[in-house]
């Protein structure tokens, strides 16, 4: 059994906690949160030991691993503290407000030989995994262009007053929605190396951006467009997609459906010339416990398996999350010009 503690029982925190609570190889030894109400509920209705102070929790419960699911501005301090205690870390995304912090933490985790992972769950969705497999096998030939998009109804009214509306705490569409797409682009096509123009637009928010539009160049010399807007109420929930044009065909992929067009029959096995449609239903491995999507369980399985030596720390490590932070910093910088 892997002993796990959680810091931060907000929306993502309790989602992780439920999956961890049901995990056959995990023993949840403690949760900590600053909200009295949250701790009150857990003390009353769950069997998890509760702590108001995360450092005390680590000292008392001696976990093997710690989940950090607090507002982004606290990540750098807390993750460093947890690593210094010699614990494996799963941190929520985006990784750090200041990209230099992320780089240091990636190095620290590597030096201490501790498993480190960040919650970019798209990489565990069957459709995007299949895109990765096809691109790695050069199924699309030379890539010509991409468009990474994400839309959803997070801020659809003028009134906003929480950490999401505070740039100091990691609020804003770029940090939240866009980070997912940036991370996916980094993973599938190559690391973002240049930003050739960026606009951060506020639609309803006063202090943060609600939409991000920019042009990107990758380390692989591929160029493309990023278009993200969390103030689009025509979407029922967050919808992330990527369109990739190659010399041998084209991919249009989101979390539900993968559409691939091949120019000829010179294409990966199982596909044929013309349009091919595959759904997440036949690209998804079953999980032991399901909550809101297989990908949330799959990413935790990956983290626990890595700790137990059954897989390698190859997906969503701190270094890759730092690369995403770095791209975010470049986009911010470019938008000021």
């Amino acid at each position: 059994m892997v002993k796990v503690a959680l810091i931060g029982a907000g929306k993502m925190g309790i989602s992780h906690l439920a999956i961890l609570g049901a995990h056959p190889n995990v023993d949840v030894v403690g949760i900590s949160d600053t909200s009295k109400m949250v701790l009150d509920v857990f003390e009353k209705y769950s069997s998890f030991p509760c702590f108001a102070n995360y450092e005390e929790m680590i000292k008392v419960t001696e976990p093997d691993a710690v989940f950090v699911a607090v507002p982004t501005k606290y990540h750098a301090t807390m993750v460093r503290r947890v690593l210094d205690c010699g614990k494996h870390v799963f941190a929520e995304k985006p990784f750090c407000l200041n990209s230099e912090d992320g780089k240091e933490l990636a190095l620290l985790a590597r030096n201490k030989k501790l498993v480190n992972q960040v919650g970019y769950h798209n990489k565990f969705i069957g459709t995007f995994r299949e895109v990765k497999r096809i691109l790695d096998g050069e199924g699309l030939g030379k890539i010509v262009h991409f468009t990474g998009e994400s839309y959803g109804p997070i801020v659809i009214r003028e009134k906003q007053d929480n950490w999401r509306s505070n740039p100091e705490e990691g609020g804003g569409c770029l940090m939240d929605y866009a980070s997912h797409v940036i991370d996916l682009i980094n993973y599938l096509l190559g690391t973002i190396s240049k930003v050739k123009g960026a606009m951060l637009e506020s639609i309803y928010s006063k202090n943060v951006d609600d939409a991000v539009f920019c042009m990107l160049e990758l380390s692989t010399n591929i160029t493309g467009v990023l278009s993200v807007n969390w103030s689009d109420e025509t979407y029922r929930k967050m919808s992330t997609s990527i369109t990739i044009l190659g010399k041998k065909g084209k991919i249009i992929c989101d979390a539900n459906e993968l559409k691939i067009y091949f120019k000829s029959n010179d294409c990966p096995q199982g596909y044929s010339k013309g349009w091919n449609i595959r759904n997440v239903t036949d690209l998804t491995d079953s999980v032991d416990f399901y909550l809101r999507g297989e990908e949330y369980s799959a990413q935790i399985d990956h983290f626990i398996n890595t700790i137990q030596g059954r897989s390698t720390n190859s997906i969503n490590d701190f270094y890759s999350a730092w690369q995403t932070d770095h791209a975010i910093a470049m986009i911010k910088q470019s938008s000021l010009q």
Partner: protein
Amino acid sequence: MERIIFGDNQFFAVNHISDEKSRAQSIRFKEDKAIIQTLELAMDNGIETFMCTTHDRIERICDHIRTNPSRFNNFKIYPCMPYAHKYANAVTELGYAGTLKHFVPGNFVSSIFKGGIAFLSKDYLSIMELLVDSEMKMFKGIDTPVIFLQNVITDLLLGLGMYDILAAFHAYIKKKYNAEAGFITMNLPKLLQVLEKRGITNPIICTSINKAGFRMSGGIKLYEETLRTKKVRVIAMQVLAGGAIGPREAIEYVCNLPNIESILFGASSAENIRQTAALIKEKSMSSKMQSVL
């Protein structure tokens, strides 16, 4: 429960297969009239039970049902609460305390928060009951013999080990609404184990059951064994596994399993509704015949 239950995903652009289809449904069911017409199509095919989330638009559908009692004489609704996105978006915007204040009627929540700090003595189960009441308001005067807890909440409580709240929901639905509580879940074997331990026998559970093993956590074999060996009334959903299996093969598989009391499906077109309903009747009949022989 009736053998066939009509679902509402198609009305609210919930499509697990394609965002394009989801948008098309959103356009097709823009007007309430389109929803009502589709419900009437289902009724013309002998389907008298509608299982739906407590989406804002359902309130207007309920108004229509109340004002047309002769047409909807035997019509039943199985409410599924809460409409998770409504709350999830509120938590994102308002935080936990703000969400409670927003949704719980009256001054109840305001009275138990003092400057955002909760008293340690308060009773969260009363808040749950108030939330249930506020979700149930729209169904006043409509027959709701089974009231469901949505899967996101069921499974969240299941993972968090908050079994008291599951049991409290079950008890409250019986006490207040003289109805049976049902649970939607993506984790049938685990949930059933927990409910049995809490003394909730032969529960009504709505869960994914399909030949592809899609969204059957722990695997298809474990589900089949659970259905064979446990006492449970199952409503099978996602029987087509999002189109991964042909309708005939999919329905045949589900109809031949034990303890499947009902099959839930949603469709938009008259032809799809007719065909699916006919298939379920046909396969249920031949399964019955086989068991008699």
